[in-house]
């Protein structure tokens, strides 16, 4: 009969099962707990896929309805930077998988190293992305309502921007990581002083992680200037002395009488957009002198020949890559937690669930990028 023999101990029902260290009270066994977690994470991944699916559907619809827009638009994406990021993420998937393996074998030290490498790859990815984003913002390649392609670049106004010849936007995008880096370094010193060796180690690892971002920025800038001439994302092309107002010069079926005014207001209201177009007179950075001529070829289309809906492509681009970047950031936070637990030596051959789950999540984030890259960068 199924009546348990525990009747007389039921006052003490916390001891009904001899639970291991990391087994929650409501599970009967480590196995049940692991199975639940595994199923849970798979379901979570399903919701993630569906979450992105709305954007993929929007992409598919606009691409089938306006293929020409996508052909015109993709030249503004630098496929070398995209490719670089693809490799970085693929590599991070490898180190993640190795980390999972290490955890399964209970090798906490190896696991922590692999996780650290994974985190560095993640931040490096974000650094490269920051280079791409800032470059586009400079050229006025924004979402549909604010899209205002000029090919010109505003002169940097920040001290760092002037000194390094990089875009102000890139400087802004580095502020938070710089603060984080300083914070983690300070925290590691303090932890050392108060004799918390483990915490100090963790903080150093976090500082290394954040440094990955700057590595990404540096590599991104170098790649960008090296591949300038080849892609339309170049800032070298000069097509006119005065900024071109794309919106004003093109018309298509979506045009409505009042929209130009609206566009302009929106653009001015956009904090990323420096209303003052008079700034756009000068270019910076070194660039090949032939850029001027190249500006009318397929890679450097004249803004006045572009469909206005090129902006929609970039709306979709920013939504997709932005949402993906948010997922990368979430992944880094989860990985940091795993790193901390590896330092504490939590993983055992019979307990490694969390590494497994976060690993699956990381592979999915990776996989989404594997789809985004060809869909956005490699249209031809």
């Amino acid at each position, binding site marked *: *009969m*199924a*009546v*348990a023999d*525990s*009747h007389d101990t*039921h006052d003490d*029902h916390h001891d*009904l099962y001899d639970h291991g260290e990391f087994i*929650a*009270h*409501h599970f009967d066994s480590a196995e*049940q707990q692991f*199975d*639940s977690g595994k*199923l*849970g994470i798979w*379901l*979570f991944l*399903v*919701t*993630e896929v*569906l*979450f*992105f*699916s*709305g*954007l993929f*559907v*929007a992409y598919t*619809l*606009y691409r089938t309805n306006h293929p020409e827009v996508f052909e015109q638009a993709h030249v503004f994406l630098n496929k070398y930077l995209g490719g670089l990021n693809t490799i970085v993420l693929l590599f991070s998937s490898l180190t993640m998988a190795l980390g999972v393996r290490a955890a399964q074998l209970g090798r906490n030290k190896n696991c922590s190293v692999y996780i650290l490498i994974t985190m560095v790859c993640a931040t490096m990815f974000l650094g490269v992305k920051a280079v791409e984003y800032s470059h586009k913002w400079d050229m006025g390649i924004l*979402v*549909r*309502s*604010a899209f205002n392609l000029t090919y010109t670049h505003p002169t940097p106004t920040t001290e760092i921007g002037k000194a390094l010849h990089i875009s102000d936007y890139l400087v802004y995008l580095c502020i938070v990581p710089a603060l984080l880096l300083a914070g983690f370094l300070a925290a590691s010193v303090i932890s050392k002083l108060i004799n918390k060796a483990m915490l100090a180690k963790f903080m150093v690892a976090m500082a290394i992680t954040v440094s990955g971002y700057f590595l990404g920025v540096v590599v991104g800038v170098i790649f960008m200037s090296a591949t300038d001439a080849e892609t339309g994302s170049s800032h070298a092309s000069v097509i006119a002395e005065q900024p071109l107002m794309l919106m004003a010069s093109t018309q*298509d079926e*979506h045009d*409505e009488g009042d*929209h130009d005014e*609206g566009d302009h207001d*929106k653009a001015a209201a*956009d904090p990323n957009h420096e209303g003052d177009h008079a700034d756009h007179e000068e270019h910076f950075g070194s660039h090949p002198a032939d850029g001027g001529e190249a500006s009318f070829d397929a890679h450097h289309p004249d803004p006045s020949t572009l469909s*206005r*809906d090129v*902006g*929609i492509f970039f*709306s*979709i681009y*920013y*939504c997709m890559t932005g*949402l993906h970047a948010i997922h990368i950031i979430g992944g880094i936070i989860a990985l940091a937690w795993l790193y901390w637990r590896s330092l504490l030596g939590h993983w055992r051959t019979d307990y490694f669930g969390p590494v497994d789950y976060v690993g699956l999540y990381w592979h999915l984030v990776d996989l989404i990028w594997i789809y985004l890259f060809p869909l956005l960068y490699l249209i031809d």
Partner: protein
Amino acid sequence: MVDASTRQKLFGTPETNFLNCSKGWKSWAFTLDHKRIGIMYLIGVTVALFLAGVFALVLRSHLFTFDSTMLSDDMYNQMFTLHGAVMVFSFIIPSIPAALGNIVLPMMLGAKDVAFPRMNLASFYLWIIGTGCLLLAILSGKGLDTGWTFYTPYSIDTNTGVIYATFGAFILGFSSIFTGLNFLVTVNTMRSKDQGWFKLPLFVWSLYATAIIQVLATPVLGITLLMLIAEKTLHIGIFDPKYGGDPVLFQHFFWFYSHPAVYIMILPAMGVISELISVYSQKRIFGYSFIAFSSVAIALLGFLVWGHHMFTSGQSLVVTLIFSAITFTVAIPSAVKVFNWLATLYKGSILLNTPMCYALSFIFLFGIGGLTGLFLGALSTDIHLHDTYFVVAHFHFVMVGGTLTALLGGVFHWWPKIWGRMYNDFLGRVGCFLVFSGFNLTFFPQFVMGSRGMPRRYASYDPEFQIFHQLSTVGAFVLGIGILLSFVVLVYAALRGPRCSSNPFRAASLEWQSSSPPDFHNFLQTPVLTDPYDFESQVYDEELDTYIPREFANPDKVAPRKEPVHH
């Protein structure tokens, strides 16, 4: 068989239970116990129900005369929008799964808790935050006037608090996903030993089917609302025709979630009704596997019919025809359930207590609601009926007549289990009568005026419709009084009601093998796995005045059946 003192411990009135095992507000606010979280959810959705109910009564009062000036037109628009949004996103979607399901589901599996208790608590706090954001739309003074459907392009152009409200709905979506994901995993991994899928109560099947929809459909709503927010703030041109976007795409995305969402609302209700009908007829449920699989069928087919909300939005004729045809097929599994319930009632020994009265009301009202759905799914009639009060009446029959009725029935059914105290059955039935008659008085006239062309969402109307509106308004107040009365009966029972035993109605699903109220860990012993619809497995124990599984009973002191006493 076990000895008398053990029996007393297991099924008698416990000294410590989940309600009194720890004290102080923190023991509730940070609890991981599914029962306490369920109770907090129940309180939360009740607040939402009352709030949105007050909006409804204001609307109905305004509509009492055709030239009413009680509300300005703007106020009227805001009122019906908030009524609908709060009712749908904050009340009805979480109601049965997150409140009742949370309390009952793990116990039906003989488990101690759901698989992820922290996620369960997080779901509740997300519910609070999301509802708060919805209400921020009013509190910020901006209001909200898009209708609960947030259709573009109006939602992009209006200056009311669309961003607060859509963000609130976005958060509420995650709250719902958390519940659904938790339930899916719980049912898969936390069932008691040897409890196969076909030994599960049908309420579990229906919650499982619901959870599938919650997990698969809600993320799409999430991204849609995010895109709407991006459209409103950055003008990305995906939905906004001013920037080359497609407003009908929004409708597709919205209904891709929101049609399945109507099954998030109704499937759990159907599960409750399967339990009530069978327990209070003391008869094995008729066609168990048909009911079980029809839940799954509804969940899956429900993904293929969203276009029936857009027959007049400019879809191609072919698409429209296909959506119409699939809509008809969805009605089949719903009807399968109704016939199975009727067959269960047939020759049952029916106990007409409060929960059963609600269950019977459900069958009647859901029948009307579902059948009128077919009028709307048929193309030629829908062209006439679309956006009229006929649609309003249809969905209130299924959502209020269906889900709210089942919620009340379920709450009455499990109330003695939760609190260990019995409700006043007479007043409970009076409440049910008021709800049932008030409901019909409110919404039946709306079918009539809808079919005569009264459009929905208008603040004023032709004098010829006035009589119907007046009936409807009177009915709404009767319905309100009925709900209020039930509320009073329930609260009084929880605080002062007479003590009751562990299983007063001879139900056979596992939750009735716990004491009333249950222990913090639900069961003091591993429950005996019984067939949830084999009532013979439970025998009446004279000493304890309750039904207990035969295995625990003293064969000399049991009777097969005790005549039920009405309190």
